[in-house]
């Protein structure tokens, strides 16, 4: 088991470099790597949790358990779908190499339980993500990538100071050391993770980055990469009870913030990106069941991004006059239903499970966020559709393979929590969706209100970090 874990962590990096040496077989190698991760994640659900202490007492510590299993499975399925999507496209070996290294570093971030391994994994993620974002080499893509790299690197510098303070207090970098560390260490570390995970106002770098990247890259970034910042937060909340209320508070805040932006958004990809912000809030709002939610969100969000990439336009207003090809519309509707929490799809189970684990003070906020989700996805469900050979022909077979994998995963994941299917549980999401659709038709369909993008400017992103730091310190100290 120990050898298997280490081999599995090393495999993506090894294959990544081999791909560069043997560019002809890039697609097969990268897909093989994703399949290996799927089988490893499924294997994790059948074995007891394993803690690894590599090297000496100051060495790397890893923890693999069913919680990380959910995240690893998400990562593996999304990577496989992205590779299938790009299979027939003219991407070079460099792209596949970066995708697979990104996959490997996200895996590493999911299993490590000490601050320094996490730091290294997160920084490798930044570099690999920058390279895939900047892959088209256009000015805009380079700027978007640079902005992402800069923001996350500044956040990680704060994080590093926090990690130093933890070491000073405990002579160890393990997550559990947060308990004995001074409050400012906690604030600094959480600042880094919040920015990296795209949470609350510190996560406002995310909409532009995710919407301006290429389709497969946004699917990968939104589906898994942000979760590399979220899982450590969940882990800290589970290990150290004192920080649990802070994490839950940020969960509610970010769920409402994301949804608040999403309902007014008229651009498909930006709406999906804001939705990622809000769904991360759902994961954090109930840390003990966050794994399952992360799995369903990862699958559905990457499917939605891949579908949004083949729609005739990005503007929702224009899409209302341009019918979509029927099969694409069906896929879009299934994914939208899942994310709104409709029964038969695993988004339902995940939502029920999260709602059940909320604390009383969170319930109102999260229900409002769920309503907002239903409103914003009504925009997709009620788009016109008809059979259009033209659009159908342009689709490559890889697209359908990727979508089948992701939506099939959504249906199959139902088994993880089949107890959700009771009358009470089914009625509530249906009522939420009904209310959401009503609100959509009465109010939001016709609004032309546009929220300002001021807070998404680069200087404000950096400045916001100092505000979040003060907010965190204040929450920690009282």
């Amino acid at each position, binding site marked *: 088991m120990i050898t298997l874990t280490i081999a599995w962590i090393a495999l993506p990096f090894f294959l990544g470099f081999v791909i560069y040496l043997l560019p002809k077989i890039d697609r097969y190698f990268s897909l093989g790597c994703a399949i290996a991760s799927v089988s490893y994640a499924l294997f994790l659900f059948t074995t007891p949790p394993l803690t690894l202490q590599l090297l000496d007492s100051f060495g790397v510590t890893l923890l693999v358990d069913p919680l990380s299993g959910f995240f690893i499975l998400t990562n593996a399925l999304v990577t496989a779908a992205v590779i299938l999507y790009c299979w027939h496209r003219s991407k070079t070996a460099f792209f596949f190499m970066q995708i697979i290294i990104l996959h490997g570093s996200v895996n590493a971030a999911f299993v490590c339980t000490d601050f320094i391994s996490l730091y290294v994994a997160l920084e490798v993620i930044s570099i690999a993500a920058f390279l895939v974002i900047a892959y088209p080499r256009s000015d805009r893509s380079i700027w978007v990538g640079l902005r992402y790299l800069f923001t996350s690197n500044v956040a990680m*510098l704060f994080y590093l100071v926090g990690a*130093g303070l933890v070491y000073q207090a405990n002579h160890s970098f393990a997550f559990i050391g947060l308990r004995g560390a001074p409050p400012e260490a906690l604030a600094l570390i959480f600042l880094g993770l919040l920015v990296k995970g795209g949470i609350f106002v510190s996560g406002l770098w995310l909409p532009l980055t995710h919407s301006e990247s290429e389709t497969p890259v946004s699917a990968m970034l939104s589906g898994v990469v942000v979760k590399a910042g979220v899982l450590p937060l969940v882990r800290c909340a589970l290990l150290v009870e004192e920080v649990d209320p802070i994490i839950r508070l940020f969960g509610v805040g970010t769920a409402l913030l994301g949804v608040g932006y999403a309902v007014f958004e008229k651009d498909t990809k930006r709406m999906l990106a804001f939705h990622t912000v809000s769904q991360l809030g759902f994961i954090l709002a109930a840390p003990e069941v966050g794994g399952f939610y992360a799995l369903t969100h990862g699958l559905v969000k990457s499917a939605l991004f891949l579908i949004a990439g083949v729609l005739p336009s990005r503007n929702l207003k224009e899409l209302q006059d341009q019918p979509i090809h029927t099969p694409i519309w069906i896929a879009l509707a299934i994914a939208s239903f899942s994310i709104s929490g409709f029964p038969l799809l695993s988004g339902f189970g995940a939502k029920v499970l999260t709602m059940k684990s909320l604390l009383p003070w969170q319930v109102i906020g999260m229900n409002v966020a769920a309503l907002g989700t239903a409103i914003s996805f009504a925009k997709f469900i009620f788009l016109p559709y008809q059979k259009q050979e033209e659009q159908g022909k342009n689709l490559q077979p890889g697209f359908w393979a990727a979508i089948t994998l992701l939506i099939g995963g959504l249906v199959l994941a139902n088994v993880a929590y089949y107890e959700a299917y009771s009358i009470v549980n089914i009625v509530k999401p249906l009522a939420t969706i009904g209310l959401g659709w009503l609100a959509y038709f009465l109010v939001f369909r016709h609004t032309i209100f546009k929220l300002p993008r001021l807070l998404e400017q680069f200087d404000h992103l*950096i400045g916001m970090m100092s505000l979040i730091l003060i907010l965190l310190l204040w929450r920690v100290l009282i």
Partner: protein
Amino acid sequence: MLKACVFATILCGFFGIIFKKNLVMKIISMDVMSTGVIAFYVLIASRNGLFTPIFSDVRNGNYADPVPQAVILTAIVIGFSIQALMLVGVMKLARDNPTLETNEIEKNNAP
């Protein structure tokens, strides 16, 4: 005292990132900030002593803690590679935005 200086360096870097308009200056400010972080780790390492922990017959009790130094070495390498990557990006951007002012670049490249 030393600790105050270290934190002042970190803050100087951070304010530089916010207040400097030019992208290259921002990157240099980030470097100042990371220098501060590195100095902080060195400071943590030297709490119990300054001697290099080398195994030998002569023993002087006040060894520096090797762990933070080993850790920060990784961070230095990562920081330097990220900076190199950023500067390459800046070089590409400089062709169309010769002043490299971030708000100008943002205006040209935002949707």
